[in-house]
């Protein structure tokens, strides 16, 4: 199917109608997406994807942004129809493609629970039965009768997720909604997903959180440019993904504040990884100290926002979490936060950085795999050793050998087997 088309003004259509009247008419009354197949801007979001998902499977779907993961979920939740092919679904589908769909800021929390539940397909009975559970899960009990526009963004998200988390459909489609709230809440969210899996429900989980995919899923597929490129046990698929499909991306820039990722507290302008005194294009070796740098617009003066980076190696191991914690609140404006990671710390291989912005303990922005870079090996340290150097980190500690005594000890030292 085509990518999302921009809407047209009648003027465009009329202008074309003069040039090619019948073609236009056929297109206007036919399936809009199929009709565009001949145009140059046509793009297959998914091509030749054939999958069979059995009941009770927890399928992880990973891939780069734009690989077609969300489109796949949209087809399965019947929001869009495939241009070619079909999707056969047996059982009720509950889709969590976005948290807070249907929420209206003027309505109270209580009213929004009902509205959101109805939008997700729950009947009023079901909502009534689960109402207390939903409220407990969201931890918003005290604020239920306030209009939602007075909620903090964290509460908003938690309430929205709480409703979605109590869907009891046989099939659950989850699209990267879990990176919200503080660490404790995120853990609860993952727990809920795990419960769904244990109850024997079929879950399709799209995520960039490779660790979550590894731990929750029974099977995984990797999409790349609309096609399935890997399929199998989650551990295998995630390592292959890290190894093969992530080209190094040592710098990202968003020039325009309007379209930059973020929200009304924070907007990201630039993120990069570069050797100290070098540029993002220069190579980083196990010995090079390098800089992790974030440039961003801070849109609120008094509130303290902490920028943090989580570093992972190619096996998905979380090496460390470091950030501007504890620094005083910076003024609003365009800021740059950076740190130097010393050489002789990381092992060679592909590494990725996930970026988070915290307001207190609450995550207000998160971008996984925002930077991916290669740490290259360097020959001189290895001496004659040519195999893989194991270990998540490869610090270079200075070993000291000193001479304590000239002789090898007294005659009682026996080196043979005699009694």
């Amino acid at each position: 199917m085509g990518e999302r088309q921009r809407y047209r003004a009648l003027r465009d259509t009329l202008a074309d109608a003069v040039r090619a009247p019948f073609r236009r008419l056929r297109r206007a009354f036919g399936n809009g997406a199929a009709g565009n197949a001949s145009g140059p801007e046509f793009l297959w979001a998914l091509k030749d994807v054939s999958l069979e998902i059995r009941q009770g499977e927890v399928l992880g779907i990973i891939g780069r942004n734009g690989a077609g993961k969300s489109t796949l979920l949209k087809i399965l939740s019947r929001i869009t129809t495939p241009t070619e092919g079909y999707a056969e679904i047996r059982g009720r589908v509950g889709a969590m493609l976005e948290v807070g769909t249907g929420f209206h800021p003027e309505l109270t929390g209580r009213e929004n629970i009902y509205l959101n539940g109805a939008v997700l397909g729950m009947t009023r009975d079901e909502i009534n039965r689960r109402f207390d559970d939903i409220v407990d899960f969201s931890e918003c009990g005290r604020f239920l009768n306030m209009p939602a526009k007075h909620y903090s963004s964290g509460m908003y998200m938690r309430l929205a997720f709480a409703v979605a988390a109590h869907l009891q459909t046989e099939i659950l489609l989850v699209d990267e909604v879990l990176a919200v709230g503080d660490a404790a809440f995120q853990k609860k969210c993952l727990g809920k997903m795990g419960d769904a899996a244990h109850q024997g429900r079929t879950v399709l989980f799209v995520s960039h959180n490779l660790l979550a995919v590894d731990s929750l899923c029974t099977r995984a597929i990797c999409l790349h440019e609309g096609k399935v490129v890997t399929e199998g046990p989650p551990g295998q698929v995630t390592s292959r993904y890290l190894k093969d499909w992530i080209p190094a991306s040592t710098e990202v820039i968003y020039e325009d504040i309007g379209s930059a990722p973020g929200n009304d507290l924070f907007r990201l302008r630039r993120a990069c990884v570069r050797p100290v005194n070098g540029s993002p294009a220069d190579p980083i070796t196990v010995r090079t100290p390098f800089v992790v740098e974030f440039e961003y617009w801070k849109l609120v003066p008094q509130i303290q926002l902490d920028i943090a980076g989580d570093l992972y190696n190619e096996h998905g191991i979380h090496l460390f979490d470091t950030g501007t914690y504890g620094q005083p609140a910076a003024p609003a404006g365009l800021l740059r936060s950076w740190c130097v990671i010393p050489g002789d710390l990381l092992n060679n291989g592909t590494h990725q950085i996930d970026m988070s912005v915290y307001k207190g303990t609450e995550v207000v922005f998160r971008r996984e795999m925002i930077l991916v870079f290669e740490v290259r090996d360097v020959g001189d340290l290895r001496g004659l050793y040519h195999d893989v150097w194991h270990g998540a980190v490869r610090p270079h500690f200075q070993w000291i050998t000193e001479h304590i005594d000239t002789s090898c000890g007294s005659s009682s030292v026996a080196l043979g087997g005699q009694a």
Partner: protein
Amino acid sequence: MSELWQYRELLYFLTWRDIKVRYKQTLLGVAWAVIQPLFIALTLSVFLGHLAKVPSDGMPYAVFAYTAMVPWQLFAHALTEASNSLVANERLITKVYFPRMVAPMSAVLGGLVDFGIAFFVLVPFLACYRIVPGASVLALPFFALLAALAAFGVGLWLSALNVQYRDVRYTVGFLVQLWFLLTPVAYPSSVVPERWRDWYGLNPMVGVIEGFRWALLRTGAPPVGLLAVSAAMTAAILVSGLYYFQRMEDTFADVI
């Protein structure tokens, strides 16, 4: 169709949401549903009825105008909201599955609720003029239904077109204004010459308004001829609207 029944709860909630949101944080709340048709009717009475001396089929102009404004308001409001219903619910449509027809349907239902409130005020209004409606009031629900179906039919066309061509949103206001002038709200249909009367009846709202007035004020014979034409026209619009809407439904999430 059975799908719509399955999603009836959603239909209820969307309608409820629209009504609640409309009147939250307003001072006068649902009174607005009454004020709008009433004030327009009164203004019309002063300028058209009293000053310009437009005929009003033998009854006080204020009564003449207000009994027409109430069903007209239903139609105008339902049509306007329904035309924009898909685009207004863009976030829902791109993220959740539900039969898309629920959106314009809930807009029309919202209009019916306002109609109910305005109608409630109509009764004491008539009482002030010492008009007591007879048994013909039983036909009222039929006329209201006709207005709602006409609004729904046109709404289906416009909302589907609006997804692809955003011009529609800006033309709806103008369309409703034009339609108002083509409907016998401010003037009686008797000013239309006999030979044009049947063409005039092609406007479904002509049947509704004349029927409504007849049911409440019992002026002469029921306008069966006009009604038949209007009802037939409404059916045609509705059926074609349903067809077009369902045809385009699959593309909404992609194009919106």
